[in-house]
């Protein structure tokens, strides 16, 4: 599942190694998360869904110039070189 949670330790005791009052990101299975919330150990601050944008491009200047989309050789250019 591509989600994780941002949690705050609201109880008096350390939770999963995180001190009371601290905030942490983790992927905790839902039943364990629910139990910890019901006990008052943590609160869910935010649930984050990891998504990948539909259109993906490399950042400008990231690729070598000859492989940049607008400078890559076309098939005609390759013919000319012969």
């Amino acid at each position, binding site marked *: 599942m591509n989600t994780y949670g941002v949690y705050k330790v609201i*109880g*008096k*005791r*350390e*939770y*999963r190694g995180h001190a009371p009052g601290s905030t942490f990101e983790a992927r*905790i299975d839902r*039943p*364990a998360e629910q*139990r*910890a919330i019901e*006990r008052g*150990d943590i609160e869910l601050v935010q649930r984050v869904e990891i998504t990948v944008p539909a259109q993906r491009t490399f950042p400008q200047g990231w690729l070598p110039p000859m492989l940049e989309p607008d400078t890559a050789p076309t098939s005609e250019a390759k013919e000319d070189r012969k």
Partner: protein
Amino acid sequence: MTYTKLIAHSDKITIDGTDVSNSFRTFGRPSEDSREDVSGFSATGNDEFLPGTRDQRFEGEAFYTEELALIVEPLYKNRTTCTITWQPNGLVDATREIYSGTCTISEFSPSNTRGSASVFPFVALPDANGIQVGNWT
């Protein structure tokens, strides 16, 4: 070579993610292998044994508190599996080895004796994977 011996004061124990170290005064992982007698009749009369099943558990003695009961009682009542860890001296030394297992709490027997500290035995049994030890340094 000298060994790093110490008096146990700072073990770290977690149940279902929550630090419960201060609720326990003893904690450990008993682990015993049975010894199966597979001796047959022979001219020598020698006995023969094979190692049998391995019986592991977390076992300890806890002080009865409302805070601990809030954590343990629902897990015990519903036979919920949860992660239990024990790290000897772990409260002051995070590099120490960690014993951990996915366990079901099988004994939670709070009781009181007049004039004495409220303590009770605690036992948790691991799933088929047993209790693993990691983080050796």
